[in-house]
Every structure is written in structure tokens, then in C-alpha cells.
């Protein structure tokens, strides 16, 4: 089955797109959607632990099951903290 995927901020840039579709097996969870994405965009792999997700505009967990045509969003940590990724000063 196909699901719609939305990516934001650094994830969107790593994938080169913020809107895409992917295919997963019936009975799949959001974790399976993420795995399908990582196989397509290996650069996303390091974000697995830090990324939060939503299903049809509700925050969800990686264990949440998905249905056909769901909108699954993967979101890097929101901008409240102090950790910085990307080029450092002088780098």
C-alpha cells in the first residue's frame, strides 16, 4: 500500500524533497515507513533516534500502524534547544 510522506527542515534537505510517497506492506507501522525512506535516502539514517513523527496530523509513535493514503510526517527535533548540527564555526 502507498502512504504519503512529509519531511521537514534538515530531513527535507537531506532527501531533496518534502513531499513524497512510499510503499509499505499491509500491516506496516510508521517504523516500516521510516525504514523504506532510509533505504531510499541513506543520509536520513542517523536521524532515526531523534526524529518524531505524526500520522494524519496527530503526533504518533514509531509503533503506530499505518493505513493506505495516510499522511506520515517525520520531523527533526524542534528548534527549542541548543544542540547544533551542520557546519560549526570555522568549519
Amino acid at each position, binding site marked *: 500500500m502507498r502512504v504519503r510522506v512529509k519531511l521537514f527542515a*534538515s530531513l527535507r534537505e537531506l532527501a531533496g524533497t518534502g513531499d513524497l510517497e512510499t510503499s509499505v506492506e499491509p500491516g506496516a507501522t510508521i517504523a516500516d515507513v521510516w525504514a523504506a525512506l532510509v533505504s531510499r535516502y541513506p543520509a536520513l539514517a542517523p536521524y532515526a533516534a531523534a526524529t518524531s513523527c*505524526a500520522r494524519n496530523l496527530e503526533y504518533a509513535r514509531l509503533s503506530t500502524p499505518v493505513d493506505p493514503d495516510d499522511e506520515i*510526517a517525520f*520531523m*527533526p527535533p524542534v*528548534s527549542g534547544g*541548543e544542540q*547544533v548540527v*551542520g557546519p560549526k564555526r570555522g568549519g
Partner: protein
Amino acid sequence: MDGPLLAITAAPLDLARLIDRVVAEHQRRRAARDAPGVGAIAMFLGSVRDRSQGRIVQRLEYEAYEPLALQVFDRIASECAAEWPDVVLGLHHRIGTLDIGEVSVAVVAASPHRAQAFAACRYGMERVKQIAPIWKREVFEGGESWVEGASMHPDDRAGLEEARRVACVSE
């Protein structure tokens, strides 16, 4: 007063209009239950700082998952209403490119008394930072990067407790 209490917008924030909107909403809600009117309005504004972690910042670029961000704002307003029934909260956040000194976020809390207004304003801002799906990219001298912090599910107790702690909510 027209306009939304909760908004994500690319336009510069209209602070006077937001205050009017929050006060009008308070008036509307309290009339229905014979409660005291507004005697205190607390407002927090976040603005673009010129330095970050030793770097000279040139501008910020904000991006939001808008429909989810609005739902999160609604949730934050509901959390405030549950904790402080006499408070009305307004939340506006900008997206797009912002220059140094521009206001990126406004939180307004109106209530009969200042203690609840200050507390709800602080609580609301902490929750925005914790759970609103809004990201900023820092453009500084010599590069740019996404500023990323702790990722938090809205139901996570640690976040709720931290927001209550900084807002000085007694248990």
C-alpha cells in the same frame, strides 16, 4: 475583534491586534459565566538575536508543519485553560525569513490577575518550544545550519512537568 487567536503567518506580527483579539475573547468567554474581566495582560515576544553560540547571526529562516503546528497551538491553549480557567491565551508565530530584531513569536495571556497571566504566558511559550513543529535555520557569517533541540511528544510527562516548573505551578 477579528483575526485568529492562534496563527502561523509569514506576515509581520501585529501585536496590538493580537492583544485586542485576546481581550475580546476573554470578554466573550467570561460573559457566559459571570466571571471577572481582564485586569492583567502578559505578553512574551521572541525576537531574532544577533549572536548564537559565538556566531554572528545574519538572519533566521523559520519553517513549520502548519496544520500540525496549529493543532499543537490549540492543544497548548487547552492545557492553559485547564490549568488557569480565567486565562485566555493567544499564540502567533512567524515563518519565512526574519532579520535581526524581528519578532518571531508572540504569546499573550489575559486574565483577571497578573499571577495567572504571567504563569500562563511562560507555560505557553515553553510548550511552543517543546512541541510545536517549527524549525529555524540560522544563517550566520560563514555558513548556515538548522538549530535543533530536544524532540518531544506532546504527551511526554517530562515536558509537561518542566513547563509547569518554569511557570511556577504549585502541585
